Structure formats: C-alpha cells, structure tokens
C-alpha cells in the first residue's frame, strides 16, 4: 500500500500543479466588466467583486467549452440585482475572423442587461444567423455554465439544465449487453464461457471497435480524473464502459471489460488464432515488462496531469486501428503489437495496456476494501 500512497500523492500534486498553472488570470476581464472593481475574491469557483470601499458590486464566474480551435473561455459578470453586467472572452483559439464571423459581440451586447433568469441561450435566434457553428455552440455552452455557477452560488437558484435527452443507441445497447453476457458467462465457466467470450469479443470488435471507434483509453480516464467530464447526454456508452470496468474489477478478480468487451483484445485474439502459436513469455520477462509498463503508465498520467492535456497520456494504438488516426508512435506500436500477436498470446493486454495497471490498482484496492469491510471475505465469489 505504501507504494500506492506515494503514487497517489505524486499524481495529486501533478494535477494540482497543472490546474494552478493552467488557471488564467481573470482579473483584467472582471475589471472590464465592473469598472468600479477594487478587489476580487475567489471562493468555490465564483469571484466576488468589491469596490474600493469594500462594498460588493457583483459576482463573476468563468465558463469553458470546446470551440473550433480548442477551448474557449469566457467570464460573465452578474450584478447585485441579478442582471448580467457583461461578458468577456478571456481565451480562445479561434482565429479572430472566425470569432467575428459568429457575431459574438452582437450576442454579448444582447445578453448584457438581461436578468440572469432570462438570458437567451439561443444564439441563432438572438443574432439572426442560421447554421450553428462549433464556435457559437461553445459560446452558448460556456455562457450557460458561467451564469449557472453564479446563480447557484449567490442566488441559490439552480438554472434548468439545457433541454436535452440521452443519446441511447446501438453502441449503448451493445455495451450493456456485452457486460451482461460477460458477467453471466464468467460465472457459468466451461465451454459456455469460451463461446460466449468469442461471441462477445467479436461483437465488441465490430461495434465498439470498427463501427464506433470508442474503446476506453488512458486519455479518457485521465481526463475524467482531472475533472473534465465528457457530456453525459451524448457519451452514455463511455460512462457505461467505465462503470462496468470499475465495478466488475472490484467484484471479480478479472474485469469483464478486458475479457469480453475490449475490441483491441479481440483483435489480438483473432490474430493469435491465425498465428496459432499462443506462446507465453517466461514469468521473469513478463514481470520485467509489467513493471516497466506500470512505470510508463504512471509517467503518462503524470505528464497529462502536469500539462492538463489528457491526450498526451494516450499511447495506445486504438485510434490507429479503428479510426486510422494517430501519431507515428501509435502506428508503429499497432504494427508491432499485432504482428507479435501472431506468436505471443495477447501481448498488448499482457504487457502494454495501461488498463492492466489500473486494473491491478483497482483490484488491490477492492481486496483491501473487502478485507476492511466487515462481512465480506475474499473468495466469497464462489
């Protein structure tokens, strides 16, 4: 456990460092919104703005969303009466012309002065432009989240969430079905387990792999850990996958995701069947490879936290295989891993996959939890 402690502390520090480093200085923007501002204090994500005499003038909060060229960040000021005092864009990577083209200035002018309850989150209606762009979507989304933050914190009003519905489609159904079948088959054992596993993996390969190209990746996990939650309405499948991974790992000794769902595992096994050798590496080599993998995974997450760029963590070749995109490193890895799979049994899963490191951590934590919790003992699984 001691080593875990060290690892967790190091990662937490990296994340904290990354967050402080990435936090932009909002004061100038807030001062433009509230020209009388004297001092600005931040607590729980909301800035309280006081004038020279220490009297409150209003509040401000930051909103963030992904635009065309990257994150777009803006600050909304709300005065004591609850009127929007102004909107300032703090950071965006849109080209200036893009930005002007979406007529953001006109939109912000329209928004300023309205009560925070009544802000019109319909960019197209306000500006009279049809055909939303990623930039205008990002503007609206970040405005909404900033206003909601002030409303919640200062006026104790929870703004209604945007009217949205869950996107529940083929991918979601497949993910749930695979987990269900996997858990059942894993308990059944024997030849049922073998055949169901093949059926599940081939389905996963086709649907989660080639069709949707959305296996779990280290980048997605890191971004979760660093507090960026992908939109749940449109990413249900991703949450199903993560929850399935965590729960089955905690309950079973192996996680069902890797055995039954992961499309890349399936790809390696298919190649393994073609190669027909299924060698296993010697235990010593295996141990060395596994510990070096743990180090790599740690380093990858660490780097992603420090830079706050979850994509940095992703060294998996999944995108290269399923979406034909990726860095040269990932393409090379893909070639090597799948060629190796002809000879060695699932080499990626065994020695390279970051999920295995995470699985080990989870499993140990789970075992520890079972040991600590009264009434549940190891081996209760049957």
């Amino acid at each position, binding site marked *: 456990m001691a080593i875990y402690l060290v690892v967790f502390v190091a990662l937490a520090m990296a994340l904290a460092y990354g967050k402080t480093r990435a936090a932009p200085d909002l004061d100038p923007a807030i001062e433009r919104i509230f020209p009388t501002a004297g001092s600005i204090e931040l607590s729980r994500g909301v800035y309280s703005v006081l004038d020279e005499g220490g009297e409150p003038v209003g509040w401000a909060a930051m909103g963030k969303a992904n635009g065309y060229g990257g994150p777009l960040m803006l600050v909304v000021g709300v005065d004591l009466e609850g009127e929007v005092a102004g909107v300032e864009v703090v950071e965006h990577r849109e080209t200036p012309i893009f930005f002007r083209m979406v007529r953001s200035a006109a939109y912000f002018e329209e928004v300023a002065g309205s009560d925070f309850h009544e802000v019109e989150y319909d960019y197209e209606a306000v500006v009279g432009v049809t055909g939303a762009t990623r930039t205008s979507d990002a503007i609206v989304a970040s405005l909404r989240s900033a206003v909601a933050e002030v409303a919640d914190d200062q006026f104790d009003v929870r703004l209604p969430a945007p009217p949205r519905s869950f996107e529940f489609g083929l991918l979601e159904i497949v993910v749930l079905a695979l987990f269900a079948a996997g858990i059942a088959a894993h308990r059944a054992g024997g030849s049922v387990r073998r055949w169901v596993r093949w059926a599940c993996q081939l389905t996963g390969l086709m649907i989660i792999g080639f069709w949707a190209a959305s296996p779990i990746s280290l980048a997605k996990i890191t971004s979760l850990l660093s507090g960026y939650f992908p939109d749940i309405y449109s990413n249900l499948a991703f949450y199903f996958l993560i929850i399935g991974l965590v729960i089955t790992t905690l309950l079973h000794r192996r996680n069902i995701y890797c055995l039954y769902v992961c499309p890349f595992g399936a790809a390696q096994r298919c*190649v393994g069947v*073609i*190669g*027909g050798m299924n060698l296993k590496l010697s235990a010593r080599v295996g141990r060395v490879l596994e510990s070096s993998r743990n180090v790599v995974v740690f380093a990858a997450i660490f780097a992603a936290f420090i830079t706050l760029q979850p994509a940095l963590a992703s060294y998996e070749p999944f995108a290269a295989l399923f979406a*034909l995109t990726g860095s040269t490193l990932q*393409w090379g890895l893909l*070639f090597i891993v799948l*060629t190796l799979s002809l000879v060695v049994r699932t080499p990626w899963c065994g020695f390279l996959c970051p999920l295995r490191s995470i699985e080990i951590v989870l499993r140990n934590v789970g075992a520890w939890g079972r040991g600590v919790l009264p009434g549940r003992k190891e081996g209760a699984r049957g």
Partner: protein
Amino acid sequence: MQIFNSGFFWFVEGILFCLVLVGFRAWAQGRGIPLPAWKWATLLLWMLLAGFTIAFVGTSLGENEATAAMRGGLLFGLITVIAGVGLWRLLLTGAREA
C-alpha cells in the same frame, strides 16, 4: 522512371510472376505439399494483397504523400503479414512426411 509505366514493364512483370508460380510449385512438390485449386486461389489473392501494399506505398511516395505511405504501408502491411501467416499454415496442410 517512365519505363515502369510502360507495356514492356508489365511484360517483364508477367514473366516474373510466372517464374514465381513455377518456383512455388517446385518447392511444394519437393516438400510433398499437395496443391489443390483452393490453395492456388488463396495464394493468388494473397499475392494481390501484397502487390497492392507495395504499389500503394510506392504510389504514395511518388505522389509526395509520405504520411499515406507510412500509415497505409503499416496498415496494409500488417494485414498482409497476418494474412500471410494464416495462409502459410493453410498451405502446409496435408503435407506428406518427407
């Protein structure tokens, strides 16, 4: 370079292709491997795949598309290698002991 776009080139390529088939047959006979029609068919398909991969890389380089050459080469190369290993195992089926 233009020679590789000429009719003469394909003439030579055709001769080489025949030599490969003859050589393959000699090799298989020497090892007592039977060669039914389906083996020939899969072999030809695999040669098409391998040839496509090589020509894809060449063409992409000629077009100055280095990324396409690299990624396409790795992807199609991977498929060729995996299919080649599978084919190899199929080819060896039915071999007499020497």
